[in-house]
């Protein structure tokens, strides 16, 4: 399971960065989304995957007796998902506006900021 997830995370990072390096704005957004998902899965993976052992201490004990599913990574992922939801919707609106004003989808043609003025 860990190996499989590790490969998946690697694939998501690689494809995300590949997409960001393309020139199209839409592919840029897809790349950002893939990269964000890769990071979230990485947190999940590095929080150690434990199945069926909720983080509840038995009544007659004061510490955990065996490995337990860590709830913190899930909280982190949830926060990260909410944040990336906001960022991605902003990205989509930004790209839409940029396309309307600049009339191109090609990042290479967006060079008004480098003009000498």
């Amino acid at each position, binding site marked *: 399971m860990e190996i499989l997830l590790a490969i998946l995370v690697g694939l998501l990072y690689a494809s995300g960065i590949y997409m960001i390096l393309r020139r199209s704005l839409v592919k840029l957004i897809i790349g950002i989304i893939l990269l964000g998902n890769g990071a979230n899965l990485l947190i999940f993976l590095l929080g150690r995957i434990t199945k069926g052992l909720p983080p509840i201490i038995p009544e007659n004990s004061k510490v955990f007796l065996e490995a337990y599913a860590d709830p913190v990574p899930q909280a982190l992922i949830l926060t990260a998902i*909410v944040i990336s939801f*906001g960022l991605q*919707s902003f990205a*989509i*609106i930004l790209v*839409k506006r940029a396309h*309307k004003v600049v009339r191109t989808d090609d990042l290479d043609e967006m060079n008004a900021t480098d003009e000498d003025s």
Partner: protein
Amino acid sequence: MKTIILRTASNYLLPVLLLFSIFILLRGHYLPGGGFVGGLIAAIAFVLHSFANGLKNTKSLLRFHPGFLMPAGLALSFFSGLSPIIFAGDPFMTGLWYHGHVPVLGSVGSALFFDMGVYLVVVGVTLTIIFTISEAP
């Protein structure tokens, strides 16, 4: 997407989904659910309504701009986070609980109001985003 089936169904689905979103909001303290998911479901209810009946009708149904929900929700969350400082002298965001049984809700505390604030903010933000995207030509 102006089929008669969807339009009829959406009229009935809107109140049901809103009720469901509040259910999800209230069960969130100990079970899966909470303000964020509840808010998304409520937003989806309105989005579905706008798909079937057009954006204009949904907006007139809402009466006010959904963006107004953002400051209202933020203020609610802010003051529920602030309440422990004011009332108990505890750090920001400490849970204050009413130790008695309240029917339907179970237990009432500052966390509940915080979640309600989150609910309102999420509905406001999501609807603003989606209305903005679908409005522009």
